[in-house]
Every structure is written in structure tokens, then in C-alpha cells.
């Protein structure tokens, strides 16, 4: 399943690239894409994109880019 989320305060393109790489490394995530320009995160998972998974993703993102927030 694929789901798209808005991002807030994503300030730099390099951070977007780093967030994308970090989320893609997660086992539960099939593919993820962070668009700096549309300020959007698209997550594709094998099963449902659950709230639990999104919490984990948010945690990973906080590590890479603490300023950026995923709007759930």
C-alpha cells in the first residue's frame, strides 16, 4: 500500500535526501520518496501503512532532521 504525507519545515534538499535514505533502510518500508519541492513524503509498504509504522518513520526522521515534522 502507498500513502502520502505532508511535511512541515523541511528546509534543505540534502536533508530531504538523507531522510529518504534513512526511511528506505527500514525493513518494513518497501520504498519511500521525499520530495523537497512538494514537501511530501510517500511511503510504500508491503502491507498497510499503519500508524505504528508512521510513528517509527517519524522517529527515524527526527534523528536525521529534527526540525522537520510529518503531518499525520
Amino acid at each position, binding site marked *: 500500500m502507498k500513502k502520502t504525507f505532508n511535511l512541515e519545515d523541511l528546509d534543505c534538499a540534502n536533508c530531504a535526501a538523507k531522510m529518504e535514505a534513512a526511511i528506505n533502510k527500514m525493513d518494513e518500508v518497501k520504498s519511500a*520518496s521525499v*520530495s523537497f519541492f512538494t514537501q511530501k513524503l510517500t511511503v510504500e509498504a508491503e502491507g498497510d501503512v499503519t500508524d505504528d509504522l508512521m510513528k517509527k518513520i517519524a522517529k527515524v526522521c527526527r534523528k536525521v532532521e529534527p526540525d522537520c515534522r510529518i503531518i499525520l
Partner: protein
Amino acid sequence: MTKKQKRSLVRILASAVLLVIAWALPLEGVWKLLVFLVPYAVVGWDVLWKSLRNIAHGQVFDENFLMSIATIGAFFVDEYAEAVAVMLFYQVGELFQSVAVGKSRKSIAALMDIRPDSATVLRDGEAVTVSPEEAEVGETLLIKPGEKIPLDCVITKGTTTVNTAALTGESLPLDKTVSDDLVSGSVNLSGVVEARVKSPFAESTVSRILELVENASEKKAKSEAFITRFARVYTPCVVIAAVLLAALPPLFTDQPFSEWLSRALTFLVISCPCALVVSVPLSFFGGIGAASKIGVLIKGANYLEALSGVDTVVFDKTGTLTKGTFTVSAVHSDVIPPEELLDIAAVAEVYSSHPIAACIVKAHGGHIDKGRITEIHERAGQGIEAVIDGKTILAGNGKLMDTVGAKWHPCHEPGTTVHIAADGVYMGHIVISDTVKEDAADAIRLLKSVGVRRTVMLTGDDEKVAQAVGQALGLDEVHARLMPEDKVRAVETLLQSKPVKSALAFVGDGINDAPVLSRADIGIAMGALGSDAAIEAADVVLMDDKPSKLARAVRISRKTMRIVRENIVFSLAIKAVVLVLGALGLAGMWLAVFADVGVMVLAILNSVRALHAAK
């Protein structure tokens, strides 16, 4: 500017003033250091804070950290002014990047300003304003002049003209009346109409288009992926080089450590790949935006990249290069004036439901007196036999003529020929053919002028018709009498014979050609306004049915790719030069920070040009 950007600007200005003051004051020693630390703290405290926080999170090669190290290092080697200036320019660069990106994001959003804000629905005879999502299928919308059409609907009352410019890039108003379809996102110009909702908002044309454009940045181009990979390697490499540069030479030579440390610091200043990481995706984003402005939707940066290298363009004929509607193209009368021949034919065909009959009647245009017919028979697979004004008229193909021994002859013009005989005597024939689109010849010519080497047309029609169209349009190759599966095979053969690294594009109308669209490097569907199937199946969507848009899209993609290449080469070259000069001790931190910020500013300004590539 946003609040955050304004705050940043104030800090930069305050710090610049304080820096000048610090410079002017005749202080020495600790006092001098303290005075320079004030502007440094004003402009750089957040960078220092972020770097500390990110180290705690295990992010070592973070640009905040690198900037902190570089500037703190500069304080250690007594280069106070440099330390403040580096931080200052770094922040100027960040601010500029944020403003420039925000601007282009906005202008692309403006290009795609097709989302309707509200819909007026008639409920129990009252007009209620709701958000488009709340309007249900089957409900009646009230659309006033000047309003955006909120959902895909059919007119039930009233007439009007609509402008589809936001969707197709064409501003020619279209007349619409009862039972005509209205497409969401177009603008109602003149009349008040009532219309029945055909599909929910989430499935309407406007939602599909917006979704498509927003998702376009997901599919990354090869050059974008290259930059991301490069950035991941570049920063650690430069940092390691900096460490080696600071540590090794003082060990083996008697030069002072501080000299090599200050050289190493210049490395850290230019260790951020920001210029590339921002400007390359920004260029693609701009290119896709520019294309959508002329009504060409490109579903991903990868397709934009492929489009720039297109070498072979394969067209489907019907509906793509031709209108797909049949009209009378010639009336060849042997005995009577042509108008009379057409008149007789129209009377004979007036009751027939065959599409060819319909277009003969349409070509006649005037009133047809059905009272002139006394007898009528349809001859399956041959044509019509009718008694008109007391004469036995036959209208149909050669076989029908043979049944009465009329001396017919084939026509030299391509198309479907309807022969006419009266009382067994051959009178002449009417030719019916598919008309070529007005801009089809232009489309081929323009594609040639942008460097497309090979243009091919595939069609299920017979050889004669295909060759005639091919010659009229100046196509390189024509393949006729193809079944749908033959088209796939033909495209596969063409794919094998094209040069490596170039792309093959297939242009179709999106109906029945999904397999070919997906087989080609770039599947292009046209006339997509109102055709969901086409939007789904294709990689590139031409919103209206003008094939000439394709050449403009290719030109936009070429310009975008040129900008991307310029930025990559330019940024890397400057960085390499500064790295070398820095290592040799010829470039100080001043030059390094100018190179870093300056390159980023220039690269961003250059990528913004992609957005204005529509011409």
C-alpha cells in the same frame, strides 16, 4: 518572505553591521576575540546548536557540524574576521536557497492553479455552496460565469462557453450546450448552466491531474540519482582529505601546524554539496512545471530526461495524426454536376445508419426531401439500392456496380469510395477519408527540427491510405495493415534498431494502445482531456489533441537537461579548483565561502530558467 526568512535576514544584517564595527575597533588580544564573537554568535548560534544536537543523533557529516568546525577552527588560527564571514555567507546562502525554492514552488503551484475551491449544488431547489469533495454523483451543480468547473459533469440546462487554458494551454473558448460534457478545472466564461455531476471529486479530471503532477517528483531521473549518490560520497571524502591535509604535512615537513590547519579549514567550507543537491531537482521540477503550462503532463523526471534524448517517434494514425472522423474529401462526377451527384447520394443514404452514409448526408448539408424515395433496400456488404425520382439508384462499392453491369473505375484518391449508378449507368463516385489534423505536418517538421531522426506511422488502414497520409506529412516510414499485436511487434523492431542511449516515443490516443504505450521508452497519450484510460496508461500526457505540442515538450526537456548538465559541470569544476587552490595555500577561507555560496546562488538562478522554458 516567511517569518522565518525575515528573522534570518535581520540576523544577517545585524551581524554584518557588528562585524564591520569589530573590524574598525582598534582592539588586541582577548578583547578582539570577544568583539568578533558577538556577530559570530548572532548569525551562527543556531548552526552551532543544530550541530551539537545532530552529533547526539549520530549525524556526523552534517553541514551544520562542518560549518561549526570550520569557523571554530578559524578562531583558533586567529582568523577572526574570516570565521564570522564564513558563517555569515553560509547563512546568506541558506536564506537565498530558501527564498528561491519557495518562489519557484509557488510559481509552479500557480501554473497548476486548477483546483476548484467550492461547488454550488442545487438541493431541494436551493443553491448550497459546498466543498467539491462533498458534491455527490448525480447531484445538480449551478455554475456561474467566471467560476471554475468543480467536478466533471454534463450540462442539463443552459449554454455557455468554457476556457480550458489551465488544462490544455490553449485559450480558445469552446461552446457548450445541453448534454455536452464539462471538464473540471476549466473555467465557465459566459452563461449560467446547470449540470449533473458525473464522478466524485477524487476521481475527477482535476484531481487526477494534480495527483499526477505532484507525484512526478517521485520518479527520479538518472542524473538526480547520480547527484544523491555523489553527495553521499563527496562530503566524507572532502572531510577525510581535510583531516589528512591538517595532520600529514606538519609531520613530514617543518612547516607550522596552523598553516596546514587553515588550509584544511577551506576544505570544510566547501564540503557541502548543496549547490547540486538543490539545483538539479529544482531544474527538473521547473521543466515539468513549464511543460504542464503548455498542457503537457510529464509523469516523472525520468521521462523528462528520456524525452530529451528522443530519436524515434512512432505515431498511431487514427486520432493522433488524423482527426479520426470521416468526411467527404472528393466528389468525382462523370455525367451530371457534382452537386447533383452528392444530392442523389445523400437522398439514397438518408435512412442508413452506416457512418459513411452519415458523413455523405452531413456533406450535403441542405434539406433532404425524403418524399423523393419510393423504394429502398439495403444490400449488406455492398451498399444501397433505392428508387429516387423514378430512377433506380445504386450507391455502394464496386461489387454493387457489377450486379447491374455499370462501368465503374477505381479512384486515384485514397479513402473509401462510394460509387453511384442510375438505371445501370455509372454516374461517378464520392470519396470519403479521414482528415489529417491541421497541425500534423507542422508536428513532424518541428520534431525534425529539434533533432528527431526517424518518424514512423503505424496504422491498421490499407497501404494506399497510409502512404498518402505519410507523404502529405513527410513521415520517414509508414507501416500499414497492422493489427494491434502487430503494432507492438513493429515497435519492438524499431526499439532494436534505434541508437543506444536514445529513446523511442510512441504517440497514441490512449484507446486500445496501452500495450504499445507501455512497451515504448516513452508512451505518450494525446487528447487526454476526459480520457482517464489515456492518463493512466501513458508516461507523458498531451492534454489536447495537438501533436505539435510534442516538439515543444522535447524542446523544454532539452533545455532542462542542458541546465542540469551546466549546473553539474559548473559546480563540480569550481569546487575542484577551490580544493586544489586551498590545498596549495592559494585560496583562503574568503574565496572558499564565496565559491560555495556563489556557486549555489548561480546554480539555483540557472535552474529557475527551466521553469520559463515554455517558449
